[in-house]
């Protein structure tokens, strides 16, 4: 047995031994563990699973042990992921610290910053939010106006962010601020600060789908120590763009990673329109659903191919934009199809007259409209593909 097969066998044995049975079932979104100073565990099993995975360094398996990881190689991490998928193990910890901040902190942070911030992320002790968009800086993100005045040993931050997911629940924020008004992209810096700092306030935003994780976030003379500046002063745009690639990669998977809790189009259609043998009786919908699930499959294969190409060192530069664009548009199409199949059953807003899962379909359908806006609109993604992959002129 080669080393990797040995690792696979050990990993599998450990997971079987340590992953509680309830943690090997599809996870409803509300049972996600986000960690933070006031962590919420919906069940004792999710707390146990979280603690075991943290102790093993497998919330962030490829990070060095000094930062709270287990120092696994890419191949080993892939094996771990495969074995977790095979056994149906839940992801023990979610968070923007792991998925967005850490990749750029590992690359651009100082050793002091890494030691200060990475281990608490790995252990799920600090929950992060993202301070990017502003009322007048959406697609034109570099137009952001939140200013940070340089006071030597600290900055004073004043301004407003919007669409800050879970700002009301987060402990820290990674934030884009303007440190120079003379240059658009060249006057942006990347900073980290504690959300309990005096002058920080948040206000949740209700969406067309109802209550949401999004907040408006206000900064009134917030003092940020200079050591919390990541990278050089006025050099934050490079970091910002790189972080966006990680965010887009995450959003593009929205329709897929929720696993068993997202209804598959063909199953919903069978429930409402299937005959005794399960054949969908509306020919036009059946054709549209077939096209949809085939595109899903081709998309998944493309994600897999990109991963293989990355491992082989031959990935395309605009891949994350393609996945963000296609994945989110596909998720929107999925909910439109589900809505057509379920008819009036999926048009309920609230109340006992509707099944909970049908009410959820309606809310998810509305929420899906945001997928192609957040993290860079579909139109921006197509611009990026045209420029970076196809080399079309400005």
């Amino acid at each position: 047995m080669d080393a990797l097969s040995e690792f696979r066998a050990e990993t599998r044995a450990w997971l079987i031994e340590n992953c509680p049975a309830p943690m090997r079932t599809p996870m409803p979104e509300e049972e996600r563990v986000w960690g933070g100073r006031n962590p919420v565990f919906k069940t004792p099993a999710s707390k146990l699973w979280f603690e075991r995975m943290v102790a093993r360094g497998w919330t962030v398996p490829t990070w060095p042990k000094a930062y709270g990881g287990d120092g696994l190689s890419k191949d080993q991490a892939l094996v771990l992921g495969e074995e977790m998928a095979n056994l149906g193990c839940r992801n023990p910890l979610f968070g923007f610290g792991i998925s967005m901040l850490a990749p750029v902190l590992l690359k651009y942070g100082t050793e002091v910053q890494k030691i200060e911030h990475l281990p608490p992320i790995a252990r799920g002790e600090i929950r992060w939010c993202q301070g990017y968009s502003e009322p007048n800086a959406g697609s034109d993100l570099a137009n952001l106006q939140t200013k940070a005045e340089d006071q030597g040993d600290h900055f004073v931050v004043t301004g407003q962010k919007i669409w800050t997911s879970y700002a009301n629940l987060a402990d820290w924020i990674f934030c884009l601020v303007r440190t120079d008004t003379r240059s658009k992209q060249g006057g942006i810096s990347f900073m980290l600060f504690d959300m309990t700092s005096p002058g920080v306030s948040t206000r949740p935003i209700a969406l067309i789908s109802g209550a949401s994780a999004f907040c408006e976030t206000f900064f009134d003379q917030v003092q940020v120590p200079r050591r919390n500046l990541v990278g050089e002063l006025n050099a934050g745009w490079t970091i910002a763009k790189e972080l966006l690639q990680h965010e887009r990669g995450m959003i593009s998977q929205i329709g897929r990673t929720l696993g068993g809790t997202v209804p598959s189009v063909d199953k919903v259609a069978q429930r409402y329109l299937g005959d005794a043998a399960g054949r969908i009786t509306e020919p036009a919908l059946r054709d549209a659903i077939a096209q949809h699930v085939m595109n899903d499959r081709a998309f998944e294969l493309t994600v897999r191919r990109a991963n293989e190409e990355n491992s082989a060192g031959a990935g395309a530069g605009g891949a994350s934009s393609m996945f963000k664009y296609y994945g989110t548009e596909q998720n929107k199409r999925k909910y439109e199809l589900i809505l057509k199949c379920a008819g009036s059953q999926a048009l309920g807003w609230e109340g006992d007259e509707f099944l909970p899962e049908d009410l959820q379909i309606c809310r998810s359908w509305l929420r899906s409209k945001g997928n192609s806006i957040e993290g860079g609109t579909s139109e921006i993604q197509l611009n990026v593909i045209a420029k970076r992959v196809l080399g079309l002129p400005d």
Partner: protein
Amino acid sequence: MSLILNEEQTLLKHTAREFFRAKAPIKALRTLRDEKNVQGFERALWAEITTLGWPGILIPEAYGGVGFGYQGLGQILEESGRTLAASPLIATVLLAAPLILAAGNETQKQRFLPAIASGEILFALALDERPRHAPSHITTTAVTTTAGYVLNGRKGFVLDGHVADYLLVVARTADSSPAETGLSGFLVATNTPGITVERTFLVDGRNAANIVFENVALMSEALLGPQDALYPLLEPVLDGARIGLAAEMLGNGLEAFERTVAYLKLRTQFGVPIGSFQALKHRAALMYCELELTTSAVREALTALDEQGADLAALASLAKAKACEMLELVTSEAVQLHGGIGMTDAEEIGFFLKRARVAQQLFGDASFQRERYATLLGF
């Protein structure tokens, strides 16, 4: 299963690209078309392809082939799609060789497979009878006689039917339900009395034939595969053809797309390259996404052919459906984005459009594949 090519496959792809660019550029297809060439392809080109060993790529060494597999053939077909090269690769290599390998008896294999590998004989599959692909709707009959069979019926859209030395004919030997049962295969020399071949000139500048069988007397040795039960052997071969054709269509789409993007950078209006207009950028980016999805589907399907994956039928329909959807979009947009020049016969982009629609129809278009996929998945 890997979705990226290994070293040998990559090398083969490069060889094929150089070969087709040098030996079978689009102007060669134009010449074949303008001359109304009797063969519909260049014998000299086929001889060179034979020298490279490609006719035997799916044939095991024991029967004179090289047994390199479908992923390799897929790369050759993709590259042939970039120059729209006309050759017997589809009819003889992709269809006939695997069908004889799957259904033939030892005598038939010994007789025909080495002759295919050496490029000596050409085959055609006489299957479809309707304008749209419907492989089980067969009314051509083969009635048993004391000496063998008598064949009656007509076939259309027979690729290479006008040049084939032998035909693989699918005929009904028993009336039964469902339509897939009661079908048999026959291996018939094209010059057998009672066979009339009418060449058809298709829009893509390549050729097929309508073939009439009128009381064609066959010896019992002509039977290919088990009587009344060819279909289970035929279907995986048709899936191979769907996937191989999807690879050719991918090459067609990639080339038409790359030419179009190059034109967007070159052509200026209002004093700027038209590729700087956001309306056109977005259309190009959408095509790019469709090409990426098609590439993945084709690669996975080719691998499934080599590994005889359980999922082969669904992957074949996936690859062909994506290739059809992608190519309808890309070739239509290619003409539009070339503007007036794209409508002229002098510009080559129209050749991609014409070949695309023929390839889309062969072995089932996108809606055929979607219907089949839905059935395979049980909805």
